[in-house]
């Protein structure tokens, strides 16, 4: 066995030290957020809360949980995310699977059609005109349908399908299985990792997205959480700017705001570490040249 030299060991610890700094930089904002959301208004107003909660209490969270507007938005966003993910995965599979058959007629034309949309976008105003002509403004469909196929994700899925040996589907074809059956009985069960990855990508995309709601929705009932949060953050700023309200109101608004931010972050923070093994592979597949 090789014995590490002193120089190598020192080198190792320099790199460990650098990584500790990186980890601290990544976590500090979240820790601060958590501390502020759990602190009492007295200390918040005095500006004395930094990285540890002072006057620990859950008032802000209780407040948020009581607010009907917030809860409704949360449930609506969960629902929206589930629907979007299912629809997107279906359409993405329907696009990726047929394209792995090399002798499919018209495949080249379809590929060009698909690739072109990656490089040229009609633009914000034409897209708005489209939604208007489809009567999608203030329609819940506008939050689901327009973002249901990401070509980038489709390429990830197709690369994964390409990695499944051709002989599997060829033998199934010999046995007279239809193409749809081959998809459901061979490709789907073998592709769990890529489905996990893309489900995460689509779900995070929907959960985090607010621009579509900003542009096409002005009915508050349809606001996804992030759109709602955007308003809270910007109105909290106004409260602070005006300083007309009493200090405790400012403090309460502040800790409530932090509690809401924390709430809307938690679902993602709970999910993504468990899928890390999958999405690392997924994120790498996308960059593989076709």
């Amino acid at each position: 066995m090789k014995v590490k030299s002193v120089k190598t060991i020192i080198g190792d610890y320099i790199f460990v030290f650098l990584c500790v700094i990186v980890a601290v930089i990544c976590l500090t904002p979240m820790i601060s957020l958590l501390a502020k959301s759990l602190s009492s208004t007295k200390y918040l107003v005095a500006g004395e809360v930094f990285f540890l909660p002072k006057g620990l209490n859950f008032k802000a969270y209780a407040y948020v949980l009581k607010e009907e507007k917030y809860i409704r938005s949360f449930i609506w966003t969960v629902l929206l995310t589930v629907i979007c993910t299912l629809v997107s995965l279906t359409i993405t599979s329907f696009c990726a699977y047929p394209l792995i058959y090399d002798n499919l007629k018209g495949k080249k034309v379809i590929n060009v059609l698909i690739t072109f949309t990656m490089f040229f976008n009609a633009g914000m105003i034409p897209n708005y005109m489209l939604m208007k002509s489809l009567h999608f403004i203030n329609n819940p469909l506008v939050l689901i349908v327009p973002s249901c196929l990401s070509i980038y994700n489709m390429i990830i899925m197709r690369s994964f399908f390409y990695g499944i040996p051709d002989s599997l589907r060829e033998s199934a074809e010999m046995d007279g299985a239809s193409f749809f059956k081959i998809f459901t009985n061979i490709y789907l069960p073998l592709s769990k990792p890529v489905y996990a990855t893309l489900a995460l990508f689509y779900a995070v995309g929907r959960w985090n997205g607010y621009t579509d709601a900003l542009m096409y929705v002005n009915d508050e009932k349809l606001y996804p959480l992030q759109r709602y949060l955007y308003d809270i953050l910007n109105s909290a700023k106004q409260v602070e700017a005006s300083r007309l309200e009493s200090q405790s109101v400012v403090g309460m608004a502040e800790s409530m705001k932090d509690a809401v931010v924390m709430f809307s972050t938690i679902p993602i923070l709970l999910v993504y570490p468990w899928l890390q093994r999958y999405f690392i592979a997924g994120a790498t597949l996308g960059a593989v040249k076709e």
Partner: protein
Amino acid sequence: MKKVQNETFTQGSQAVYVKKTGWQKFGIYVRRYWQLYAMLALPLIYLLIFKYYPMHFITIAFKDYKFNKSVFEMPWASVKGQVDILKHFKAAMKPDFYSALRNTVTLNLLDLFFGFPAPIIFALILNELPFKRFKKFVQTVAYMPHFLSWVIIYGLVCILFQPDGPAGGVVNNLLVKNGLSIIPFLDDPTHWIGTYVMVGVWQSFGWGSIIYLAAIAGINPELYEAASVDGAGRLKKMWHITLPGIKSTIVVLLIMNIGGIVGGAFDRIYAMQNPIVLSVADTLSTFVYRIGLSSSYPKFEQTTAVGLFQSVVGLFFLLGANKISRKLGERGIW
């Protein structure tokens, strides 16, 4: 896979070769493959409606907008009865537009300068870590910011970087507590640019490193052993083996970044900007949104013109960067 071909039927002991006509072949092909086309129908309809159909609205940039007419019925843009299809382009090219263009390019170049090397450096550091579990922990933590929305990130930025006082930022409160003066991270244009770029690096360096780590994993380990035998140290190996080993990945990603030099994510900039710093924070996309969608007198023609400008210039940058990389002997992105 079996090809659709002329089939041979067996009648009794004699094989009869049946010649198929073109239509019959087509029929067999359709009967075999219709399911694949049926599956493709959904995504293709989606692309046609949501990606291609809106393209015809681009002609609004060359017409005089009438809200009660279809795009085809709108008259061509004209000045005093004289058709001038570039009217709206000329009208859009005002100082506001130039400042938005300048801001877009400046912010994207700064992003490229600071944000592009960060994941490479991080991947190199991670690759040298001796402890597997610690490495995994650092990776998980570093990927986290990628999963936060820009609204949440803006919330975090406020918590850290707002001015001091009640509901103030942590950093400035700490500075004041220690008798230092505050730093206007969000309220001063120059500081805001710095904050914007650094937050961008924070959000993307971990996620960006995944791809470089994969590329590093693909380097032949014998190269490292040979270098060790020759007495190369750790840094020498990083410089002479790891970096050249991931060169093509770096080039491909650089091309994509250069292609996006006049683009930029709307959700990021829109969440981060505030009215005080608009002079440096207004980019083409927020400019289009501000005067095209959120204004009470939307200027559809001019903003469509700006959007078209952005798309076309972006396309040229991408094609150009791809061409250059091929000339340099690297693979392009297609």
